């Protein structure tokens, strides 16, 4: 990827933002440093001048102009002093002090003035002599100037400023370089993710994102993408199985239907024969429609949209009503259907679907139980170890433990039950309904037979 792309990446923009924030804070810190150093010196200059003025004012009060001139002369004579003094006549002719002429700069309202010292010998590097002073007008029109040579102070401030500027430049350089490095590293990994994604989109479905193992956000992103891809792959495998099964399971009855109708056309003669053939055809079509509506019910339960229509459902009521519906059919099959209602749990759910799920379990129990057997419908819980549940137990052949997962898949029928009628969708629907309700489907050995329980999550008792 060219470096031009770097400027457009989010990562780099984030790096820039950080750099900006970093710079802003560095600027604040540098400003403080400047204020504490250069500013401190400046304030000191002013304080020194103020102290000088206070001293001179004392002399002037006690001994008027002559005393002032004397003190000024004495102080000006101090070698290498950086304090400036000048006493001048009303016409600004110098009377005493170490300045040769009254500066022509105008003072600000507070009396402070900044000016250039004209008669000072120029420094080797051609630096100007700057001074800062206060001017007073004394009684009788005499003038007094007290100030300080600010040349050294200026040099110092300049040095501070230069070093601060360097610090700033260094900060920008380091920050930018760091930002670029970090963003390039991150971008490199995102680029790898994008590349892999494109490969997957172009058909390499088994490809997965590389995970560094550091557990950072990018690793988590890659991990989540991989998990998502796994899930999609599973769904696709499932879909393929379903469509294969549909194709297979629907083709058989459709073929049968078609060949029957064909034979009818060729062989039938009397109206009664036609009638019989048509009735058979209708029966076959009904079975096909049954498969479709079962598939649709499963799809509906799996879509989860029904959760909007959930309300409080008493499991015991469902058990009583469905037992009422199935009892005669069970008796007819030579079985006894017992309801064992231990508690009256209330769950959130869809009454129709739950009833349909229990009905499917009873259909199975009736279908596979040998004559003289017993089918038990149990409602219990919730108690300490288990949520509320509704279960159906029979005395049939049961389902081997290693096949309990697979019977939940659509159209799966165990070899042992191939001969009995059914479309292999009953338990799939029960499973889909259970999952819609956030419930678990538990299968157990009834020794002999099968127990299937729909175990609900624990909710606040309604």
């Amino acid at each position, binding site marked *: 990827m060219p470096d031009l792309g770097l400027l457009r990446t989010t990562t780099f923009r984030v790096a820039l933002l950080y750099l900006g924030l970093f710079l802003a804070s560095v600027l604040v810190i540098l400003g403080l440093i400047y204020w504490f150093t250069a500013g401190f010196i400046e304030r000191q200059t002013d304080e020194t001048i103020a102290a000088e003025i206070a001293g001179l004012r004392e002399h002037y009060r006690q001994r008027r102009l002559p005393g002032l001139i004397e003190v000024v002369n004495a102080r000006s004579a101090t070698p290498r002093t950086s304090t400036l003094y000048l006493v001048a006549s009303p016409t600004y002719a110098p009377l005493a002090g170490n300045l040769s002429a009254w500066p022509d700069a105008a003072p600000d309202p507070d009396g402070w003035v900044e000016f250039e010292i004209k008669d000072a010998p120029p420094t080797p590097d051609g630096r100007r002599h700057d001074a800062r002073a206060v001017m007073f007008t004394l009684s009788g029109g005499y003038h007094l100037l007290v100030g300080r040579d600010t040349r050294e102070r200026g040099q110092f401030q300049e040095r501070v400023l230069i070093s601060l500027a360097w610090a700033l430049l260094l900060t920008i350089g380091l920050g930018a370089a760091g930002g670029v490095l970090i963003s390039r590293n991150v971008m490199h990994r995102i680029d790898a993710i994008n590349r892999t994604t494109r490969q997957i989109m172009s058909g390499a479905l088994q490809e997965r994102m590389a995970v560094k193992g550091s557990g950072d956000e990018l690793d988590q992103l890659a991990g989540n993408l991989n998990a998502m891809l796994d899930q999609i792959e599973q769904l696709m495998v499932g879909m393929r199985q379903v469509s294969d099964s549909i194709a297979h399971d629907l083709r058989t009855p459709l073929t049968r239907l078609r060949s029957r109708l064909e034979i009818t056309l060729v062989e039938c003669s009397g109206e009664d024969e036609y009638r019989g053939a048509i009735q058979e055809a*209708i029966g076959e079509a009904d079975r096909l429609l*049954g498969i479709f509506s079962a598939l649709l019910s499963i799809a509906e339960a799996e879509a989860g949209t029904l959760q909007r229509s959930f309300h409080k459902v008493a499991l015991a009521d469902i058990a009583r009503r469905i037992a*009422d519906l*199935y009892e*005669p*059919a069970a008796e007819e099959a030579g079985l006894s259907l017992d309801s064992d209602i231990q508690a009256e749990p209330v769950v959130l759910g869809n009454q129709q679907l739950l009833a349909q799920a229990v009905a499917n379990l009873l259909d199975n129990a009736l279908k596979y139980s040998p004559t003289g057997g017993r089918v038990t419908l149990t409602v219990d819980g919730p108690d300490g170890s288990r949520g509320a549940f509704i279960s159906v137990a029979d005395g049939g052949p049961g389902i081997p433990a290693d096949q309990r997962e697979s019977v939940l898949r659509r159209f799966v029928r165990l070899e042992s039950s191939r001969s009995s009628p059914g479309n292999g969708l*009953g338990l799939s629907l029960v499973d889909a309904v259970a999952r819609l309700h956030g419930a678990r489907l538990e299968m157990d050995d009834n020794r002999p037979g099968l127990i299937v329980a729909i175990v609900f999550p624990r909710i606040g008792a309604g």
Partner: protein
Amino acid sequence: MKILVIEDDAQAAAYMVKGLRESGHVVDHAADGKDGLFMAGSENYDVLIVDRLLPGRDGLSLVEILRGAGTDTPVLFLSALGSVDDRVRGLRAGGDDYLTKPYAFSELLARVEALGRRKSAGAAATTRLQVADLEMDLLARRVRRGTKQIDLLPREFRLLEYLMRHAGNVVTRTMLLENVWDYHFDPQTNVIDVHVARLRQKIDRDFPTPMIHTVRGAGYTLRA
């Protein structure tokens, strides 16, 4: 009976109209909601059959408008949407019954006739039902046939009550499941047949003329 079919699918409508006419009903057909609304409002029908998905509008809104205008003709909804939710919404919008496509014609006919009877019977609360020599006292929850007292389980009583209220009409297994047990799915086991068989044992045994008859491919009917 006079029936209005509001259905946009020409083939489905033709099939329905033909079948209903052969069963002795007078049938009108409207191909869209606008015509349907006009006809339903201007003529006096015994039953309306309304498709949920009409061009440009939902059959639900059409029935809501009719109900709002004071038309209380019984309505049977037809829909390709068979979910529990859709059924509830259909009945809430003022429908009296709901049938999911694809349906067996016998099922449609049985339901239409049940609806038509409901209208003519009116909403008068009866305390006694009688069909020939079979009597049901709804208050005392007692059933007699001729001079013989017949003991029924609560569910058998409800089943017989429904059959008697629709005496002379075909009632399908689905109608019984929906109206007696309030279930809207088809069990794989023939549970309804067993219930009816048991009821028949109690009602028809010891009597020369059976009252509960099986209608092949459709359901059951109770008649003298």
